[in-house]
């Protein structure tokens, strides 16, 4: 029973356009959400996060949107760059503090072509 779902295994976007990666969750106790980026043969690296008290968090080219009523979040990358090509994992936790295991989705592979 997956609590965090990334229904699109892959996404292809042209350089300069917007990339939108989606994530759905089922557990209403989740109150903190994170996006990680992973290159081959490397560990995931933290990208951006959002607390459930917010509906948007922005960091440079990356923006995360949270729709609590729909239990849905999305990551927008604009403009997309070839270096953004990687696997993106959505993750959630039940408490906004260190010490809670993250529940991950299966990931979406983003390919940005030049």
């Amino acid at each position, binding site marked *: 029973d997956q609590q965090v779902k990334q229904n699109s295994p892959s996404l292809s976007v042209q350089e300069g356009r917007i990339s939108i990666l989606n994530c759905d969750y089922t557990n209403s106790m989740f109150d903190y959400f994170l996006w990680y980026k992973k290159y081959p043969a490397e560990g995931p*690296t933290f990208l951006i*996060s959002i607390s459930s008290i917010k509906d948007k968090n922005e960091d440079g080219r990356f923006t995360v949107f949270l729709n609590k009523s729909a239990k849905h979040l999305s990551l927008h990358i604009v403009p997309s760059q070839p270096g953004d090509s990687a696997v993106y994992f959505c993750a959630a*936790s039940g*408490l906004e503090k*260190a*010490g809670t295991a993250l*529940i*991950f989705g*299966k990931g979406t592979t983003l390919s940005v072509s030049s």
Partner: protein
Amino acid sequence: GAGVSQSPSNKVTEKGKDVELRCDPISGHTALYWYRQSLGQGLEFLIYFQGNSAPDKSGLPSDRFSAERTGGSVSTLTIQRTQQEDSAVYLCASSSQRGYNEQFFGPGTRLTVL
């Protein structure tokens, strides 16, 4: 500064053998996590250490899996009598109390059980 390191980077073993995987967290991080990623899957939580508290072992898939953390720093994940389904990338992460669950991952150990 040094990030999370793991060794070995790759491990090939025969079914039934025991293996030990090592993790060196970021200095000063009190929380340490083990996850694994099987082929085509997201990251699956295994075990969590926080300071001197008893570890949260709720994610360990069987009693063949164990982990320890000596001196609040280095951790070793041990898999006894390995099975083919244990083949995965084993990832270690650490975080600080101030990190609001931003976990920093190591590069992982790819375990292949023949």
